[in-house]
């Protein structure tokens, strides 16, 4: 259980594809707890991927509970080796990222998603997510592929200064 520093650009680990997790052991469970603990420190943060705390493994935490744009909500969830099985209906909205200081950007994301992954209990799960939870999942899965929202902004004039620092 530990709050870890959130790495920011230009840390190289943020741009590297992460490796699959082999089996949910004590190390994986500790990573899951660190992701949740670190996510909880910033009240506005709804998701955190392992590369953001310097771990090059395919794991992320997400929790969109109480968010005004959320429809589906699986509560606090850590997923390992998550992959998008189906994606539908791109919509553009503004995103920021704990690892990209000062900027936000307009990014098109699918609004409905089927995602497959392994939970912290080692259970294989297929999740149907939509709306804001779908956006959060795609943002975090991008981190596992070494992609930041800056790699996906819809155009050069769709990047903005972030005014509120959290």
């Amino acid at each position, binding site marked *: 259980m530990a709050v870890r520093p959130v790495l920011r650009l230009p840390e190289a680990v943020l741009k590297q594809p992460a490796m699959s997790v082999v089996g949910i052991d004590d190390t994986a469970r500790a990573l899951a707890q660190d992701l949740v603990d670190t996510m909880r420190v910033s009240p506005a943060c*709804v*998701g955190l991927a392992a590369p953001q705390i310097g771990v090059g493994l395919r794991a992320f935490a997400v929790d969109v509970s109480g968010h005004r*744009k959320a429809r589906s909500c699986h509560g606090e969830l850590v997923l390992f080796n998550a992959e998008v099985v189906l994606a539908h209906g791109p919509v553009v909205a503004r*995103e920021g990222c704990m690892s990209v200081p000062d900027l936000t950007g307009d990014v098109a994301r699918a609004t409905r998603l089927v995602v497959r992954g392994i939970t912290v209990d080692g259970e294989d799960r297929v999740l149907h997510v939509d709306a804001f939870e779908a956006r959060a999942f795609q943002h975090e899965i991008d981190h596992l592929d070494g992609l930041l929202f800056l790699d996906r902004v819809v155009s050069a004039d769709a990047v903005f200064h972030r005014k*509120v620092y959290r």
Partner: protein
Amino acid sequence: MGHFAVSAVGADQPGIVAAVTGVLVGTGCNIEDSSMSILRGHFAMMLVVAGPDDLDAARLEQALGDPARDLDLVLAVRAIDDDVPTSPEGDQWTVSVYGADRPGIVHEVTKLLAEAGVNVTDVTTRVIGDADRPVYAMLLDATLPPTIAGSEVGRRLDELGRTLGVECAMHPSEADIL
């Protein structure tokens, strides 16, 4: 280290950014912020650069004279404050305005916002559609002080839109931090 505002505008063609920034590198300047885009066929550059202590605005403008002549650019360099001015804090909103083109749309909308204490942080305007039926479109980012209700400013904008015969709407544009 001194700071300069550099602006350059000229008919769009390949090589404008490369030529201007080539001089900036050569004079020891670092681009700290910039916005560049095509405005009605003209490539417009606005840059804030930091330069070495022994460089002044007149000398930088002179150094930029070569690419300005070659590419027919209207160019200006001015010294600016080294301190970064701070903008008012508050909630982020986006105002969208579109409708039949007529003079005064930008002024009327921004006058309303200014009188309400709203700070405009970004404006883009475009004339779109056919030449015989031009449509004016404006997107504006603004910061609302915590003391002002967005719904109230939105209501006033809606009223103004009716007077001007344009659609005028406002929505929160706070980014979600994922």
